[in-house]
């Protein structure tokens, strides 16, 4: 049997591929992992692998964060070398990062390797986002597309991709969240650590350049959150500060309102538990929108668009952008809703469906 090759480069990819990797280990399917270390934290990621109880990557590419032309270039070359050596039967990539693009590109002209794209068919229709380009290219190069929901399948079909390449599986994030929240609850207690009461605190994360690189946007967001303290008693917002955001806060000399408490970014397991016990989430991250939805916590997205419209459709998420007024009105709106949505991302058995599709090809 030929091997499966997992190519991953960032934390979200590790998380979302983790159920598949665990399943391969469980079913004794030969596999290996290529870690591109796109976010230049090989050592930190080693801890992360351990935390999630995952085997380490067999290959670490250490490409670092150069300009993305150069970064993708060195990834493609390195990945091809490994492919030639290991001769995998299938390459699995996930999401929309440069690692996905490089993995798909490196294997694109090897006709005996199946390229499978996990989380295919996502579109924000915002071409200014480099990730959108990565998504489009990866989807059109891949041989098997695992669409999280029927919506993504329809998008792909509309783009002319043959139906027989697409399989709706649900999102592996559900599989991952289900397992990982259990691990987390056993390991730690965040309520104690942050001295908060369950469902009486909120969470804020900001890292997208469109938010944190503009002083005006940061100020508008903080003004909204400040006002919310009086309106809906948001008196404790835990702000997990991304290094880029911190740098800009200092650069712009912005003072945070009293109801926002800045803390260092936390590990994945801790974050998961923090989300699960929060009253409300404010974020510009795509992954957190999903996790909040799965853990049944309302979410306000501080962006103008989303690749996760399902979360909006079922009522668990509102796209508020950066305008103060909109943030306030959206928050009031979502807090008035009852939390009774059904998880739109699948039943937590996505990884099994995927492996079942891939196994005969190995």
């Amino acid at each position, binding site marked *: 049997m030929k091997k499966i090759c997992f190519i991953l480069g960032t934390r979200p990819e590790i998380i979302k591929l983790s159920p598949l990797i665990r399943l391969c280990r469980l079913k004794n399917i030969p596999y290996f992992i290529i870690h591109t270390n796109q976010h230049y934290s090989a050592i930190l990621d080693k801890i992360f692998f351990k935390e999630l109880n995952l085997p380490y990557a067999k290959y670490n590419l250490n490409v670092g964060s150069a*300009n*993305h*032309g*150069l970064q*993708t*270039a*060195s990834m*493609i*070359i390195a*990945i*091809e*070398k490994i492919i030639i050596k290991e001769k995998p039967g299938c390459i699995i990539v996930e999401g929309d990062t440069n690692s996905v*693009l490089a993995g798909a*590109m*490196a294997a*694109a*002209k090897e*006709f005996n390797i199946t390229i499978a794209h996990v989380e295919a068919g996502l*579109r*924000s*229709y*915002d*071409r*200014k986002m*480099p990730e959108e*380009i*990565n998504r*489009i*290219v990866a989807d*059109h*190069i891949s041989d098997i597309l695992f669409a999280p929901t029927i*919506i993504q399948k*329809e*998008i792909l079909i*509309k*783009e*002319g991709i043959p139906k027989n390449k697409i399989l709706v599986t649900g999102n592996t994030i559900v599989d991952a969240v289900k397992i990982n929240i259990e691990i987390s609850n056993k390991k730690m207690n965040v309520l104690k650590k942050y001295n908060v009461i369950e469902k009486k605190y909120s969470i804020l994360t900001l890292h997208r350049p469109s938010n944190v690189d503009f002083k005006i946007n940061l100020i508008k967001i903080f003004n909204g959150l400040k006002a919310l303290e009086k309106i809906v008693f948001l008196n404790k917002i835990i702000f997990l500060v991304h290094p880029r955001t911190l740098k800009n806060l200092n650069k712009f000399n912005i003072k945070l309102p009293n109801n926002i408490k800045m803390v260092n970014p936390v590990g994945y397991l801790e974050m998961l538990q923090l989300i699960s016990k929060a009253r409300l989430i404010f974020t510009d991250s795509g992954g957190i929108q999903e996790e909040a939805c799965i853990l049944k916590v309302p979410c306000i997205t501080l962006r*103008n*668009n989303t690749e996760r*419209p399902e979360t*909006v*459709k079922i009522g668990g998420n509102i796209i508020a952008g950066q305008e103060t007024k909109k943030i306030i009105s959206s928050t009031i709106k979502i807090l008035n809703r009852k939390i009774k949505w059904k998880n739109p991302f699948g039943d937590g058995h996505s990884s099994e469906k995927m492996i079942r599709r891939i196994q005969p090809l190995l």
Partner: protein
Amino acid sequence: MKKFRIISLLGIRPDLIRMFKLINLLDIGQSKNNYEHLFMHTGQHFDYELDGIFYKELGVRLPDYNMEVGKTLKKGGHNTGFAYQMGLLFERTAEMVEKFKPDAVMYLGDTNTVLSSVVVARMGVPVIHLEAGGRSYDWRMPEEINRITIDHLSDVLYSYVPRYKSILLSEGIPEFRIKVIGNIIHDAIENFIYKADQTNILSKLKLQSKKFVLTTLHREENTNSKQILLDKFSDLIKLANEMKVVLPLMPRVRNNLKQFGILNQVLHSNVIITEPLGFFEFLKLEKEAKVIISDSGTVQEESLILGTPCHISRLSTERPETIEAGATILSNKNLYNNTKKALTLKNNWNRWVLNPTKKSPSEVVYNDLMEKINNNFFKNSRKFNYTKQNKIMKQAYGIFK
């Protein structure tokens, strides 16, 4: 005000032939309109010095910038495989975009060079693609991936014929990005046929007009296996018993013949083996041949325009128009019989099938580009339009607020 800067980025010689008129139009137009045109080359292949002569022959100036991808790989003694080529191409393209800060980059065709549009698009620069919408639906062809990739990234897509446009529409590409222009090869042939007529290739090879077969086979599907090569060439010998066969051989094909030990079997008093020919000489032979055997898409188009029947020895084609017009016989088997069949084609087919409007495709593109530049099309093309996105999302996802 900063001038709009458009870059034409080419990679291989046939691209240059097709683009020569548009490049010249864009160069000349700079004095009348408010834009700058830069002309660049990725140097995907190594035939760099050869190219110098080639530009002169075509009457195109030398590029403003050459990424020298092929040359660098060869000099550095690197593997010249796909990954290295792609790697270097991505790296150099990113450097180029940073250095020249273009407002749009224009590509043509389906070579590996067009894959660098991925980098361009990711850096937020609009992409223009000429020859958009060509599909062979043959996934073993590396070019198919290139075509699909660039088409889905492009901001403006110029399609040759309406069928290409409908392919793009069926793949969900919005109509406002697509324009049908006619096949740009028309401009090349119209302009260069006089030069071709001036060559002495017929007398050099001792050929008479309409009394010989012209053959070019270079695709891997035709030349990489001994059995297939043997099949093709024994049929060619059979043809040579009836008339002269001109056979320009690419070095790779010649090597394969040698390697498989069948080069001797091709020797026949009526088979004229030559080195690869210059563009003008080849064009002249295409015009004067009685019938052409080829696996090249370009030759398929050129033979239709020049009025020479053609047998395309391939499994699939991106250009079914030439078959429908009655100018081409497509088959990857039985070269002899299919060539005979091609000889029975009546050459009164419509030679404008590839360009029904009979306008110069380069001029159509040029005028359209000017209009788009003046209307700020490119500025708005990547601007995030909230209402529009909502509309698209609504279409895609049904009602949601």
